């Protein structure tokens, strides 16, 4: 019955929150893992090679002069560089020789909102990191400890929304009882969704990403049916391919750069349940869910942040 479903949903959320309060961020870390860190004196274009070579889209920065953590390199930084170059095409040399330590200047030059450098100690409750995550623009939370002898910072790891949801899906059997349709949870982003068409210039799509502080822009056809998505991380491929002559491309052409191991865009309908979506997160590296109707028409988007927010604060 509706009441039973409701009650089950509430009890499951309570149990999952209890679980998140009983664990620490340290518990999410695998027994053995690697962490790639970039020295701030590295050139941006070299750092891009390192990210692509290691199949990662973000990395912590380390400033050897201060021997301290210097924030995170994310796709937002590359979007800033593209926007800066688009506004200053004569500054090719500066962009080509730009070091990671210079990205903050680029941010200021284009008036971009600086990324937060919030971090948390690995021994703090995981619930705290989750709440901090909700307010983080970078959608990542670095785990920072201190070297016991020298009090210097240690970047232990970086938590992402995906890793947290996957940890919940793997360890909380209560996720199977989240059976209410997502249409009833009021968590789908609908209404004035920023979207574009296949022929839209990629630079306009990048502006949409930046202005909307979103990490993806759906691509629809003339009938509003979803046909693809341009993601912030696709910008790395654009730069790698030599952005300087690709900014005139349409977003459809820019997507030709996507490597063949791209898993595809996940869709769902508003009849789906969180139990199913979390199960999908457990099995696949999903970035978000686009909500479509029976005919494939775009209705809304459900980001990992929306799901995490509901789990922490919903109902």
């Amino acid at each position: 019955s509706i009441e039973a479903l409701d009650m089950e949903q509430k009890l499951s959320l309570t149990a999952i929150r209890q679980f998140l309060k009983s664990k620490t961020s340290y518990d999410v870390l695998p027994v053995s893992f690697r962490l790639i860190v970039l020295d701030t004196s590295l050139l941006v274009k070299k750092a891009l090679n390192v990210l692509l070579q290691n199949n990662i889209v973000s990395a912590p920065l380390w400033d050897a002069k201060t021997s301290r953590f210097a924030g995170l390199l994310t796709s937002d930084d590359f979007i800033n560089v593209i926007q800066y170059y688009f506004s200053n095409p004569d500054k090719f040399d500066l962009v080509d020789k730009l070091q990671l330590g210079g990205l903050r200047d680029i941010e200021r030059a284009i008036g971009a909102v600086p990324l937060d450098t919030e971090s948390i100690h690995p021994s703090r409750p995981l619930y705290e990191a989750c709440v901090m995550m909700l307010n983080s623009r970078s959608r990542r939370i670095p785990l920072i400890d201190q070297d016991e002898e020298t009090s210097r910072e240690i970047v232990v790891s970086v938590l992402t929304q995906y890793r947290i949801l996957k940890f919940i899906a793997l360890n909380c059997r209560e996720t199977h009882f989240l059976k209410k349709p997502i249409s009833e949870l009021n968590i789908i982003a609908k209404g004035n969704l920023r979207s574009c068409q296949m022929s839209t210039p990629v630079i306009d799509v990048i502006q949409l990403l930046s202005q909307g502080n979103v990490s993806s822009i759906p691509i629809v056809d003339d009938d509003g049916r979803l046909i693809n998505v341009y993601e912030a991380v696709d910008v790395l491929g654009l730069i790698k391919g030599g952005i300087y002559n690709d900014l005139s491309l349409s977003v459809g052409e820019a997507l030709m750069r996507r490597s063949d191991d791209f898993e595809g865009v996940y869709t769902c309908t508003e009849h789906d349940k969180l139990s199913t979506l979390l199960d999908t997160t457990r099995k696949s590296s999903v970035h978000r869910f686009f909500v479509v109707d029976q005919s494939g028409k775009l209705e809304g988007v459900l980001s990992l942040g929306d799901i995490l927010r509901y789990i922490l604060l919903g109902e």
Partner: protein
Amino acid sequence: LATSSIKHNTLCVASIVRYKRKYVTQILYAPL
């Protein structure tokens, strides 16, 4: 210390460190 061949004028060094009961391979990329 573990090192990898210098590529694109970028040096990559690493060391495996025990962090409490887990093992982190800390990898640093720096310009040559």
